[in-house]
C-alpha cells in the first residue's frame, strides 16, 4: 500500500520561525541599483548595529516557542494514545464484567432452584 511517509511535509511553523534581514532594492530604471546601494550604506551606518541584536533576540524567542509548541504537540499525541489505550482497557473490563454478571446470575438461578430441593431433603 502506498504511504505518504516517504516525503516529510514542511511544517509552516518550522519554515517561518526565523526572521531575516531584507536586502534593499529599487525599481527605478538605470539608477535603481545605485539607490539601493545608498540605502544599504545608510542602513549599515544608522541601524544595522541596533536591529541585528533585536533580530537575534526575536529569533531566539521564536526558536524557543517552536520547540515548546512541538513539545506540547508530542505530549498531546502521547496522551491521545494513552487515552485510547485506557478506552480499550475499559472496554475489556466492561466485557469481562458483563460476562461475570451473567455467570453470577446463572449461579444464583441455579442456587434458587436447588434450595427447595434441599429444604425438601431436610424435611425428609
Amino acid at each position, binding site marked *: *500500500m*502506498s*504511504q*505518504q*511517509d516517504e516525503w*516529510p*511535509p*514542511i*511544517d*509552516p*511553523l*518550522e519554515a517561518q520561525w526565523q526572521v531575516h534581514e531584507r536586502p534593499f532594492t529599487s525599481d527605478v530604471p538605470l539608477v535603481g541599483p545605485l539607490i539601493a546601494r545608498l540605502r544599504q550604506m545608510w542602513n549599515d551606518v544608522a541601524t544595522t548595529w541596533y536591529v541585528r541584536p533585536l533580530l537575534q533576540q526575536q529569533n531566539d524567542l521564536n526558536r524557543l516557542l517552536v520547540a515548546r509548541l*512541538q513539545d506540547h*504537540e*508530542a505530549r*498531546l*499525541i502521547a496522551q*491521545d*494514545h494513552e487515552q*485510547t*489505550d485506557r*478506552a*480499550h482497557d475499559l*472496554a*475489556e473490563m*466492561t*466485557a*469481562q*464484567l*458483563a*460476562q461475570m*454478571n*451473567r455467570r453470577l446470575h*446463572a449461579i444464583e438461578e441455579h442456587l434458587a432452584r436447588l434450595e427447595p430441593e434441599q429444604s425438601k431433603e431436610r424435611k425428609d
Partner: protein
Amino acid sequence: MTRFPLHVAYFSPLPPARSGIADYSGDLLPFLAQEVDLTLYTAEPEQVDATLRRQFAVRPLAAFPQERWQFDLPLYQMGNSVHHTSLYATMRRYPGVVVLHDYFLHHFVAHTTVGQGRYDEYTRELGYDHGQTGTALAWAIRAGQAQHPLDSWPLNRHVLDLNLGVLVHSQTVADWVREVVGNGRPVQTIAQPLTPVSGESRRNELGWPPEAIIFAAAGEVTPPKQVDRALRAFSRLRQEGENVYFLIVGGESAEADLDSLIADLDIGSVVHRTGFVPDLAGFVDWLATADVVVNLRAPTLGETSAVALRALAAARPLLVYDHGWYGELPETAVTRVPPLDDEALLAAMRRLAQSPAARQEMGQSARHYVAGRCQPAQVAQDYRVFLEEVLRALPF
C-alpha cells in the same frame, strides 16, 4: 464458549439510509438475530425502516451509555462515509468489535473534522496516526501548501487501537490490519452476506441484435471505476469487428464526464446508459442483461464490491483488476488483468467476447462461489463464532 446467547448492541447505518452498509445490515440482521440477541442503536430510531423496527428493539445512541451493561459486546459497522458520524463518536468512548468495511477512513475523518471547520481535530487525528509528521502535514494543508492524502493515509489507527476485535472482508485488508495491531488481537475476514435475487434480462428493450455480446459496467460511475478505460478497450474491440455492445448501469458522477468520451470514440449508438437504478430488482435485471460485467477499480483502498458479488450471483463472468480483494476472487469465476494495463484489458475482453463456452463456465463457477461463500446464515454464524472468540481472548 459461553453458555448464554450473546447480547449484542449493534451500531450501523440502517435502511432506508442510502448507504451500502445500511443495505448490508438490512441483509445481515434477520440472520444474525438467529445467532445472538440484538438491540439496534442509531442516531434517529424513528427514521429506521418499519420492518426492522417491528423485528428489533431500536434504541437511540444517546441511551447506550446507561444501557451498555446489558450487553456482552457492542458491534460497530464502520465505513468511510458521513453515515457513520454518530456511531464513531460512541465507538470512541465505548469500543467493542468493529467491522471495517473500508480500510481507508480518511474521507470520513476529513469530512467530519475539516468539513465542519474543526481543523484542530483533523490535526489531532493525523498526529495520532503519524506523529509530528502528521501534525506538520495538517498545518501544511491548512496553509494551502499540501493536499489531503485521502488515498494514501488510511487514518484508521484510532479505530483499530480502540477495538477488541476487527472483522474485515478480505485477506488483503486483514494483512494490513495485522501490520497495525499485531497478532495479539482477534482479526478475521468475514464474507459479505448476499441473498440471491433472480434477475430477468432486459435485452429486448435495447433493440440490439440477439447475437450481440453485451459488456456492462455497473454501479455509480466514478473515476476510480475506470469506465473510460473499459470504453476505450470496447471501442477498439468494435473496430476489430466484434459484435459487442456496452451497457452502463448506474448514476454517473460529475467527474466521470462520459458524454465527451463517448462522442470522441463515436460509440453513442452502441452504448446504453440506464442512469441511477433505484431498486435492487431492477439493478439485478440489468446485470442479467449483460454477458460480461467489467468491474475495474484503481486505486483499490481495500474495498469489496457489492456490485461484483451481485454480478457473480447472477452468474455473470466478471472482469477485474488483479489487486486487493478483487485479486482474491476465484480464477474460475473472474478474469483478472494487471491494474491499468489497457492491452491486457483489451485481450481479456476479446477472449470473453469470442468464447461463449468460457463465459458459460465462468458464470456457473461465479454462481457456485457466491452460493458457497456468501450465505447469510453462514455469515451470521461466523459473526457469532468471532464474537465468542473475542470474549475468549479477554485477559481474565
